[in-house]
């Protein structure tokens, strides 16, 4: 791209006055173009990539910060063996997958439905849209602790109280958080992330050309045919984008587990890493777990990047 934009500029400069500079022009020009990119790249590499390298190194070390622990030493693959053979860690991996798939899947379907509803004109649409967005604007840890303590808590939680007032016997003792901890977290996350996906999908729907839909209806397409053949292909990229972004955030969810169940029967990988290094102080195993997370994320990221790249290649083609 630089070669396309550079020639017209060189022509405007009086080449005869500074001949030596003209020879160096190419190298200087490309560095001038690249320079603004460098601070951001360097900063990001130092702050986000170097720690990963350190995590990788530490994952091959025996390193515990417990007072009675032995000194640091090379551990080979022992930490990885621990990660894969300890049932609690395997459960954490499975919990992460389960919670992500359930939350992203349910949120995407709900969000599409709600976005389709809000794409119609009706009285108070702006207000309903505002109400729908609100859950996403509650600070995640604040939402999690209130769901855990104010809504799903055994006894004085809203759900137990309302069920009791509706006459459900024994409602006071329903222990939602301890009986179904994963479901509880999933519901809270769906509540918080459906609005996020809905906003992206609604924007996608509203960018659809109304004349195309009108033409379809004049040509005799019914609502379902229009939806499947016109609307769905149009919102597909928005659906993909919302799923990719939702997955990135929900895989990393830490606040809901901490705030609602404290990890009880619902530990996911971020929480397991936190606990292993913060409470158990086993830095070697925590690092190995971190490396496993990174590898897992890279697999997801490969898929995700392919989706996002379709957004960019469309644009690159149109430039």
């Amino acid at each position: 791209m630089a070669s396309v934009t550079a020639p017209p500029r060189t022509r405007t400069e009086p080449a005869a006055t500074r001949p030596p500079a003209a020879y160096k022009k190419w190298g200087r020009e490309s560095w001038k173009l690249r320079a603004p990119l460098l601070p951001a790249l360097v900063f990001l590499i130092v702050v986000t990539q170097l720690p990963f390298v350190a995590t990788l190194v530490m994952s091959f070390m025996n390193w515990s910060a417990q007072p009675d622990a032995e000194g640091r030493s090379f551990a080979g693959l022992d930490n990885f063996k621990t990660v894969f053979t300890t049932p609690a860690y395997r459960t954490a991996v499975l919990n992460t997958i389960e919670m992500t798939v359930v939350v992203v899947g349910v949120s995407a379907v709900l969000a599409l439905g709600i976005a389709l509803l809000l794409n119609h004109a009706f009285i108070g649409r702006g207000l309903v849209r505002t109400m729908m967005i609100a859950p996403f604007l509650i600070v995640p840890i604040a939402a999690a602790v209130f769901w855990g303590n104010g809504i799903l808590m055994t006894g004085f939680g809203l759900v137990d109280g309302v069920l009791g007032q509706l006459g459900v016997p024994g409602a006071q003792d329903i222990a939602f958080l301890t009986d179904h901890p994963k479901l509880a977290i999933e519901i809270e996350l769906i509540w918080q992330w459906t609005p996020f996906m809905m906003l992206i999908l609604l924007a996608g729907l509203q960018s659809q050309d109304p004349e195309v839909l009108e033409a379809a209806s004049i040509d005799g397409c019914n609502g379902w045919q229009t939806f499947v053949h016109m609307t769905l292909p149009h919102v597909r990229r928005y659906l993909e984008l919302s799923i990719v972004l939702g997955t990135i955030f929900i895989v990393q969810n830490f606040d809901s587990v901490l705030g609602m169940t404290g990890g009880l029967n619902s530990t996911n990988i971020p929480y397991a890493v936190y606990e292993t290094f913060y409470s158990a102080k086993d830095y070697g195993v925590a690092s190995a777990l971190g490396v496993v997370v990174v590898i897992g994320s890279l697999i997801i990221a490969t898929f995700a990047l392919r989706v996002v790249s379709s957004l960019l290649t469309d644009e690159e083609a149109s430039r």
Partner: protein
Amino acid sequence: MRNWNRQRVAKIVIPIAAWLIGIIFVIPILYMVLTSLHAPQDAQTYPPSWGAPLTLENYSSLFTSANPITPALINSVITSVISTLLVLALAIPAAYALAIKPVKKWSDAMFFFLSTKMLPMVAGILPIYLFTTQVINMPDNVIVLILLYTAMNLPIAVWMMRSFLAEVPPAIIEAASIDGASTLRILTRIVAPISMPGVAATSLICFIFAWNEQLYAKVLTSVAAQTGPVFVNTLIQTEHAYLAELAAGATLISLPVLIAGFAAQDKLVQGLSLGAVK
């Protein structure tokens, strides 16, 4: 005739369904606010004391108790605002190099930025913790949080700003530069006005994500640099009636995000879609 009936049914069903779903989604928030306005002993009863008298005592006790929320709120404001400014300072030049006069392989650079966002923050947290506590000896320090939040939001900001700057027609810039306008003049007179809405959307998103962050804040701070989200978690004190004050704290720290998000709903959408939706 049948079509007409269908449309009529849709005209009644769609608003009812939409209103119902909207109400369901907002109920937990309304209940949180209601709980925060009840006296502590009225807030955690079975069944809920719906009609209990309203009071602001929970909010005032957040500020006047032995362990007030004020320092945490100040830390949250400092980290969110300064990290957002730093993000803009780094992201705007980068986005310029990726959009206005794209460097070779600009999309590779874009994907590098995005891929750092896909690696879980938790995987790098241990070296960061050891580095700040044992190497540079800066535990419990807002500067550390500011730098981390800057890195956390930088990829999103680069993506957003690039998509906004790509809106600037290259022909205008070309014409201005042939007419002899300096780079600075092109930036301030042409690029800045067109990309201002993008800067606003980017700032909003970066502010919200920095304000919301809790994992780094919890691990890397204790007292001096504690932020709002970490403080709220400490309000769970089960030895006495704690729910009302917890609800007040949760409502209070969410208030800036709610106000900013409602005030700039369209910016929110632009930002959340990484600038893909205008």
